[in-house]
């Protein structure tokens, strides 16, 4: 855990000599705690203290990158057990498992490449491929790898190889970035460690249960292999939850040998249960979740869950107050108003797009609150809406004086009309999904 200003102050010489450029040691300590100045700026601080600070500042879960030159993925660097304590930083990587003996490799790679969905203006997708050396054969694996690289030269890769010999051949020939080598078992971990060191790749540590994993990571650490991902091989959701909770908690309490990201194999025969397993991984500390198949509905659920859980609990996502254009609106186009909560904005905007009706979208600053929350907090009130519409001078853009409000705040209609003389307020549907039909009818009624 990073130290507080007071904790840092206690480590300083406390002479207030001002050589650091600050009036007191305490003032300096506060700035260091905020990350605004470096501890080295005090010439009199001991090496020991410097190391201590550095250690305290390193997240208890080791962070590192893998992937290709152009598609790096960061995992780890987490600092809390519960997202409300600060936030979860590096979103769970979703990977598709492909076996090297699979006959449909091309098709599966295409599915990965086509998995992109946009939600709240983020591009969400399956991020990586786990290629499993099921054949136990080098040639078969290399051929499969080539197929993948031909279609997706930059896709981040995890190699599921247990033979040190095959692993070292594959890595010798592999020259694009850093795949993860999965991995090191109780039988082969010394050899795998050597290979990982030689090629500087992260290693998956595989053993049944936290204790066995602990033993291997402890040994690998002392050999200087530090970029690890852990797999305790949970068979059920219950084991997954237990192992991951124990690992995260231990890591936060300073157990270095467990301070590594976790990889979870969610693949199950039953798609529904696989989705549940993957969700547990996303909610509870897995940095990589490996799936057996790509299904659109499953992706959408997992992407949304991941986006929700990894959002920042302190700052609601907001957009700037403004009159936005959706499509190419003109003087006869409709005008819609809503709040500046990013989720609200994007949902409304995408439904306007679906309607194909060019529209003016007035986004009002409500501190990033949703429609009803902002209304309940007095921020999306009739008088504030009226003031915003006046000050925005949107009327200069319009031939009419009509304002469409969200259905959930229908009760504001009269009050807004009262405060905006000459305007007519039209109540839209409650849910954004009703916007396309609503807008098309609205336009039709004008002709």
């Amino acid at each position, binding site marked *: 855990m990073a130290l507080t200003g007071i904790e840092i102050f206690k480590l300083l010489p406390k002479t207030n000599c001002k050589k650091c450029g600050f009036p007191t040691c305490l003032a300096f300590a506060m700035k260091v705690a905020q990350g605004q100045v470096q501890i080295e700026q005090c010439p009199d601080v001991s090496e020991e203290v410097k190391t201590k600070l550095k250690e305290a500042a390193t997240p208890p879960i080791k962070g590192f990158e893998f992937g290709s030159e152009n598609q790096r993925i960061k995992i780890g660097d987490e600092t809390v057990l*519960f*997202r*409300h304590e600060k936030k979860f930083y590096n979103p769970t990587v979703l990977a598709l498992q492909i076996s090297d003996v699979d006959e449909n490799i091309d098709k599966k790679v295409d599915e990965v490449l086509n998995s992109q*969905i946009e*939600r709240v203006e983020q591009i969400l997708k399956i991020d990586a491929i786990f290629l499993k050396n099921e054949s136990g054969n080098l040639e078969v694996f290399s051929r499969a790898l080539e197929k993948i690289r031909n279609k997706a030269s930059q896709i981040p890769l995890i190699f599921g190889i247990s033979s040190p010999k095959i692993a070292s051949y594959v890595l010798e020939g592999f020259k694009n970035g850093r795949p993860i080598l999965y991995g090191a078992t109780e039988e082969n971990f010394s050899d795998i460690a050597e290979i990982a060191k030689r090629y500087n790749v992260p290693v998956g540590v595989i053993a049944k249960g*936290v*204790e066995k994993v*602990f033993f291997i990571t*402890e040994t690998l650490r002392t050999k200087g292999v530090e970029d690890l991902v852990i797999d305790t091989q949970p068979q*059920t*959701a*219950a*084991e997954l*939850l*237990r192992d991951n*909770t*124990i690992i995260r*908690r*231990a890591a936060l*309490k300073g*157990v270095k*040998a*467990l301070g590594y990201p976790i990889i979870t194999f969610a693949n199950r025969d039953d*798609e*529904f*249960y696989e*989705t*549940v397993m993957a*969700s*547990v991984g996303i*909610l*509870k500390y897995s940095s990589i979740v490996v799936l057996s198949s790509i*299904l*659109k*509905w*499953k*992706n*959408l*659920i997992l992407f*949304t*869950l991941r*986006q*929700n*859980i990894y*959002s920042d*609990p302190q700052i609601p996502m907001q957009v700037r107050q403004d009159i936005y254009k959706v499509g190419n609106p003109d003087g006869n186009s409709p005008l819609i108003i809503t709040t500046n909560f990013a*989720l609200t904005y994007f*949902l409304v905007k995408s439904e306007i797009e*679906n309607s194909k009706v060019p529209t003016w979208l007035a986004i009002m600053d409500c501190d990033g609150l*949703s429609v009803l929350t902002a209304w*309940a907090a007095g921020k999306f009130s009739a008088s504030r809406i009226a003031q915003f519409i006046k000050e925005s001078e949107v009327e200069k853009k319009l031939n009419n004086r009509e304002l469409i409000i969200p259905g959930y705040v229908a009760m504001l209609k009269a009050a807004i009309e009262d405060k905006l003389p000459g305007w007519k307020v039209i109540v839209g549907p409650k*849910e*954004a*999904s009703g916007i396309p039909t609503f807008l098309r009818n609205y336009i039709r009624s004008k002709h």
Partner: protein
Amino acid sequence: MSFIIPKEIYTGRIPEIVFGKDKIARLGGETALPMHFFEGDFPNKPLIAFEIQDTKPEDYPQELAKIYSSVWDDPIRWARFCEALGAKAITVRLMSIHPDSKDSKPEEVADRLRKFLTEVDLPLIILGSNHIEKDAEVLPVVADVSRGYNCIVGKAQEGNYKTIAASAMAAGHSLIAMSELDVNLAKQLNILITQIGFPKEKIIIDPMCSALGYGFEYTYSVMERIRIAGLVQQDSMLCSPLFADVGFYVWKTKEAQASEEDVPQWGSLYERSFMWEAITACSFLLSGAELIVMRHPDAIRVTERFIDDLFSLRQ
């Protein structure tokens, strides 16, 4: 070096709620964070209750209509149908009382409920329509009519808890207390409710639910915080079972309704919609919910399988 599991020290125990008359259901009673079987007791599994409404629903989308449209005109048949699907408990939502619906009078509701109670013997949760004034008017009558049936009634909110809590207490029911996504508001409401004499062990907190993708993370985190406050930080006013009204919020979302033709990139509507409900529910099981109200039988099946899987580790 060997590894010792770092265990949390807990000071609280979530009260156990037992409800129902002929058939009984139990929930709560645990002494550790959700599903931490390695460091606490979990006498009861979380409970999923099927939702039915007292009038034909106006906003059930296609995937729900497919299942319930043949029975939803008649709450008794609807409840029996759920029982046949394996329901362990039933939630009746009195939508008809909402002024925007039929604005049913308390006496009408009471008559229908009397009949319902003689015909259906599953443990029962009775919810109002989320209209503060109307709930305050109807729920006391409802609580009285169901006296002796040992139900759970709700939701009591800041604006109407007095009459609802008083009547639930007089009739011996447990109570759902709903506040708005805020630990302190939840605590405050529990304090107010106990101040009028309602027993704390019979309160269930509804911290306000939301669907995956639509405020989900707020509910998830508020639940976690309430659980931690109640079990670890010795805050007895937050040491109560948690309620999640999952189906109600999930089935409003676009993800549960839009056809595959409209959003081809979202895939099959059937799987997408019921799994949206299942994953919302499964997630809240991990943040602390032990009473969840759901709608789609397949979503309930997946969620119950998850519960059974989790409890396979109970010592």
